[in-house]
């Protein structure tokens, strides 16, 4: 399985810079897919990837899936023997839609969604007539946010949105931001990651619908589960964001359509088959 990372963020937020930093640090070949609607080649040219491992995508038909450009690029990348694939999302993409490729496309697994936020423009974008909701979604859907060119007030805004962020100065290796097996790193705090040796993580991705109450009961009963975070889809077709730790289990309704995707941190082996009772 090739880990797939989605790098999202509004126009000018610094996605390309981040990708170039990742590439500079990379020891093995990384495939980059650039999905932008403007001057495509210009964007793709800014990516300093050796070999021909950067592909630009065009938008296909807006009414159907006939022009499966992203899909065929993912297929091409499989041939190229890359260690990981990074998608630079367009400035207006809802990253969770692209993340679905990591969950669905054969041969790939989702590594996570990283959104880049530029402090200088954050306030304006969040109140913009056209893109405020898009920018907010890019923040809310991210597993990890990289905050650059910011002031303290920008941090406050992100905290108010319950966003997990890290600032440029705090970054040691850019790879730590995303590649942690297939676990989106920032589901968990730094401390928890330090204790990683005693913890294991498992990911559940499924298109089966899940019963919220049964899941909650299951989590309470199973004392080996330390934390769980992710989205579930219930029998009514609604999506819920779950955030669970030892002291509380919290479901909040989410406006994003996605299949169930949960990350569990647990102390003993967790057999995903034992989860059967949670399906409705």
């Amino acid at each position, binding site marked *: 399985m090739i880990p797939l990372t989605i790098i999202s963020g509004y126009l000018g937020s610094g996605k390309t810079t981040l990708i170039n930093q990742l590439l500079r640090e990379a020891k093995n070949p990384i495939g980059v897919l650039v999905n932008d609607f403007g001057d495509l080649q210009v964007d793709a040219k800014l990516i300093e990837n050796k070999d021909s491992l950067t592909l630009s995508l065009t938008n296909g038909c807006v009414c159907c899936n006939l022009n499966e450009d992203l899909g065929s690029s993912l297929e091409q990348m499989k041939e190229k023997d890359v260690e990981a694939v990074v998608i630079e999302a367009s400035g207006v993409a809802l990253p969770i839609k692209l993340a679905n490729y990591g*969950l*669905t*496309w054969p041969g790939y697994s989702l590594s996570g969604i990283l959104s880049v936020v530029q402090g200088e423009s954050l306030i304006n974008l969040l109140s913009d007539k056209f893109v405020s909701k898009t920018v907010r979604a890019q923040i809310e859907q991210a597993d990890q946010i990289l905050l650059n060119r910011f002031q303290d007030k920008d941090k406050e805004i992100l905290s108010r949105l319950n966003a997990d962020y890290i600032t440029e100065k705090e970054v040691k290796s850019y790879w730590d931001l995303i590649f942690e097996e297939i676990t989106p790193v920032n589901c968990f705090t730094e401390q928890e990651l330090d204790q990683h040796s005693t913890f294991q993580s498992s990911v559940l991705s499924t298109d089966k619908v899940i019963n919220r109450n049964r899941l909650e009961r299951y989590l309470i009963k199973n004392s080996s589960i330390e934390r769980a975070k992710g989205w579930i889809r219930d029998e009514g077709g609604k999506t819920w964001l779950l955030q669970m730790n030892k002291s509380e289990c919290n479901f909040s309704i989410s406006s994003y359509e996605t299949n169930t995707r949960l990350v569990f941190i647990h102390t003993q082996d967790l057999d995903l088959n034992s989860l059967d009772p949670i399906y409705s």
Partner: protein
Amino acid sequence: MIKVYKAKSIITMNPSLPRTEAVAVRDSLILETGSLDSMKPWLENNDYEIDEQFRDSIIVPGLIDPHLHPSMAAVLLPTFFITAMEWRFPWGDTPATTSPEDYDKRLKEALTNPTHKDIFITWGHHDLWHGPMSRSRLNKIESNKPIVVWNRSFHELCMNDGALDYLGITEDDVKGASQIDFERGRFFELGLGYAVQKLNPYILDPEIFKEGLLKLKEVVHFGGQTTIADMAVGLFNFDNEFDTQLELYENEDNPFRVELIAHATALIQYAGGSNLEAEKLIAKLPERNTHKLNFRKRVKLFTDGAFFAQVAQLMEPGYIDGHEGEWLSTPEQFEEVARIYWNQGYAIHVHVTGDLGLELALDTLEKLQFEKPRFNHGFTLEHFGLSTPEQVYRLSKLGANVSANAYYVHELSDLYANHTVGSERASSMSRIGSCFREGVTTGLHSDFTMAPAQPLMSMWVAVNRVNEKGNVMSPEERITPQQGLEAITINAARILGLDHEIGTVRAGKKADFTVLNKDPLEIDPMEIKDIEIIATVFEGKVFPINKK
């Protein structure tokens, strides 16, 4: 030689002479319309012939569909239709198939002729009518020959053992993929993308693509259209789309012309990578013009996502379930591209579906008008799903045109009222009556394959606003039959910048007519869609429609 067609009545759509009974044509041009008596000065000193074949019929200007997609039609039409609704086609009607048993029976009968080389692809399956589809259900009908069942919504398909085998899709390949159910042979959403990618060599096969375009030729003629516009050349592959249309449509027996409008963003890569290069390429496209296929100074841009897929961008209060619409580019990028074409003098056609998508187009137009004022600039809002009355007022002041998809009201207003945006906004989708009241040049299109390529059907919806449940949605937004006919003739011609040549029956225009068995301005408006089209006349040549 002059040819004079006599008719029961000619609706000219020329306000100075609205009704006549004869029209004199020389070669491809109208010499005069009036009565045999009034056109005597033309006839006295020339050879002429009086043609009586339409004497019991009604002649209207050749109908115009200013927005459809030949390349999408070319992909869909070669598949075998098994549908819950009746579809009328020149090669015969597709009857309504409304039960699982009938579905299976029809599929079994049709299987003898594969649609795509060895594969049989059928389109139109709908769970609600035809029951859930699965690999085992298909295997019971036939397990060896490859069968692909493509859902009406385009969002899902199902394969039998034969198809999985033929396409080389194994359980191992798709292990763990959450939107592929290998056991049941089902591929949906992104999983569908995977399947379509495997099917692409068949559905985009050049021979089958040609077959599809030839079928579209019949469909366009059958709908009574003498002019259509391909409103996004470059959707799949620019060269392929242009070359194939050129090969198949540029000949004596093609009964219509095709206006070609380039998809600006799709051409960026083709042109070398930048918007400026794309503009230079688009500026040169008219060099390829032929008699029937023409590029003009027009270009297609997009703001927000598709209306059918519920990703239009909405102003407050948004969607009932709180989901977000989608932008197809950032507003900054949209403005930048629009400015390039505006400053070069293009007519810009913008795909807008939600009211916020429309708002972006209007804000941009207002800014461009301030920077470089233009009159009669042809900036056109395409589709026009949701809007507000204030936006209609504003777009009128800014000089924009509207090319609306009225069919939304028919197919989607009930669904949108109950589940998507609520009754108030759903009932006023395609707010066409307001556009006419504000004096906006308003045309109707099919966006085929989104709606049937039958202008009289679009006119019927705009005039009656009856949805699939039989309810009239916002009667205030209905238009009169006269306005409805304007929308598919002269207004559609204005939207394509061809009103000096087509769109009415008057001296000096192209002899393009559509011949009907009933008078669309006199009959019960609910019968407009059932009017029979007897023939079309394209540039003076008669193309009868054979009933099958």
